[in-house]
């Protein structure tokens, strides 16, 4: 007679292997979902199985894969986080078992129509973040054991990994395309100012919300912007595009950078609530003898007046835009002479773990030397240890010419 405890151990091992074997590795997310759902349905003797993914923006779950629930998949069925059975799994981030389904425990009419009686759902987690929900159901009433829940959680973890990998790739491609379309490929030719810029995507996260912009206004003023939307990926790139565009619009109407950032702040708080960005906006006068500048929580530019040492151009730091408080924003006015160089940048250029920011700022200042703007950009990029940079880097350098 077989020792029952040994049979259990073998059985557990068999089940675990069934959902983690090498064959799953080569599959994309959709294929992995289908394969995992099929296996877990068989292993646990379920009649229906489904995977819902989290749409974080909408705070809803969307059905993306299902067995016995193909119609939910076709309809891209959605449920609010917190509502119904799956919504509860999502909001608590804990497994939920319903022994007997009823109208108020299950929101999906399609699911109810299957005649399912017992439902079990587990959260799909990547670290502490919710990716989606995996659930199974049986037509006959059923007791799910602790081991069943553990197995289901294992499958959910595997599905979460597959989803993250695919989403990251798709987002990255889309964000790259968006950014390329938004960042100026060629800088404008500007009277008496030489310009150069660099955009370096970060290593760890792919693309994000950094941007730079340069534009000439109808009155001849030159506007220079460097900004950093918090977050990364496609969402940050989308918000960045909107900010860039809106700033230009306000710059046409308002001569004071502080006023422009104030209007921009109001716009982002209303239309892009939940987003936040640091920005520095400098305007160079038509005669190229003054710079007016305002900063929304952004690092100070580096200025190099002719015949002097490079220094930080300290602009009083007002709140980043999108934070949610009404702010009296301030501008400073700086007189400049021909030959002055100015460098605007994002924190990826100077911020390093284990260092006070001043170390990176000093490093940057030491690299700012007199000379053509493009050579200045090249020297900065060459002189900064890019391997240590985790973030995107946007960099604009300009020199006011004498002629």
């Amino acid at each position, binding site marked *: 007679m077989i020792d029952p405890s040994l049979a259990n151990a073998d059985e557990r091992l068999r089940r675990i292997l069934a959902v983690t074997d090498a064959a799953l590795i080569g599959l994309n997310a959709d294929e992995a979902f289908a394969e995992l759902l099929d296996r877990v349905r068989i292993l646990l003797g379920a009649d229906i199985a489904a995977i819902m993914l989290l749409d974080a923006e909408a705070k809803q779950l969307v059905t993306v894969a299902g067995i016995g629930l193909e119609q939910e998949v076709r309809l891209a069925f959605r449920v609010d986080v917190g509502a119904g059975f799956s919504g509860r799994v999502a909001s608590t981030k804990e497994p939920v078992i319903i022994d007997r389904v009823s109208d108020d425990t299950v929101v999906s009419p399609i699911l109810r129509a299957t005649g399912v009686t017992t439902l079990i759902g587990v959260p799909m987690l990547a670290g502490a973040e919710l990716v989606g929900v995996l659930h199974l159901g049986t037509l006959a009433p059923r007791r799910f054991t602790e081991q069943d829940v553990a197995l289901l959680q294992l499958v959910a973890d595997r599905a979460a990994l597959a989803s993250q990998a695919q989403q990251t790739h798709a987002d990255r491609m889309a964000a790259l395309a968006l950014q390329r379309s938004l960042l100026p490929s060629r800088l404008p030719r500007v009277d008496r100012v030489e310009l150069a810029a660099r955009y370096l995507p970060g290593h760890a996260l792919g693309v994000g919300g950094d941007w730079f912009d340069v534009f000439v206004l109808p009155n001849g003023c030159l506007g220079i912007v460097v900004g950093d939307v918090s977050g990364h990926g496609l969402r940050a790139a989308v918000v960045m595009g909107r900010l860039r565009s809106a700033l230009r619009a306000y710059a046409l109407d308002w001569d004071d950078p502080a006023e422009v950032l104030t209007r921009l702040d109001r716009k982002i708080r209303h239309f892009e609530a939940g987003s936040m960005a640091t920005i520095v906006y400098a305007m160079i006068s038509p005669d190229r003898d003054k710079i007016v500048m305002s900063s929304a*929580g952004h690092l100070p530019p580096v200025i190099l007046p002719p015949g002097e040492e490079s220094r930080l151009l300290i602009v009083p*730091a007002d709140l980043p835009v999108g934070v*949610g408080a009404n702010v009296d924003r301030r501008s400073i006015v700086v007189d400049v002479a021909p030959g002055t160089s100015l460098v605007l940048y994002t*924190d990826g250029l100077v911020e390093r773990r*284990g*260092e*006070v920011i001043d170390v990176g700022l000093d490093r940057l200042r030491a690299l700012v030397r007199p000379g053509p703007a493009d050579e200045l950009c090249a020297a900065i990029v060459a002189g900064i240890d890019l391997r240590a940079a*985790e973030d995107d880097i946007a960099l604009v350098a300009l020199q006011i010419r004498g002629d």
Partner: protein
Amino acid sequence: MNLPARATAVDVIRNSTGATLKVEGDLDLASAPLVMDRAIPIVDPGGGELTLDLTGVGFCDSSGISVLVKLRQLCDQRGWLLRTVNLQPAVWRIVVDFGGLGDYLNVG
């Protein structure tokens, strides 16, 4: 040298007026969701005082700043007062001096 980030820990200490969130480790992209996850259940609709103790935080990047702002916004929504205390010099530079967030986060 780029040091690998150690996992960040968040301790919750409740008291008579509200709670203290003590963060140990870097405040960055990886740890931001954890901080929010710990804060949300504490900041209940009743109102109170949330003290954010950053004694143990040596590094705070834009993701870290973002979560600090979100904590203040969460407190605003639920009638809580946020105070941020014990910032290390490196974090003070980023958050207060250059970030302009000293008043907003009630830094003390």
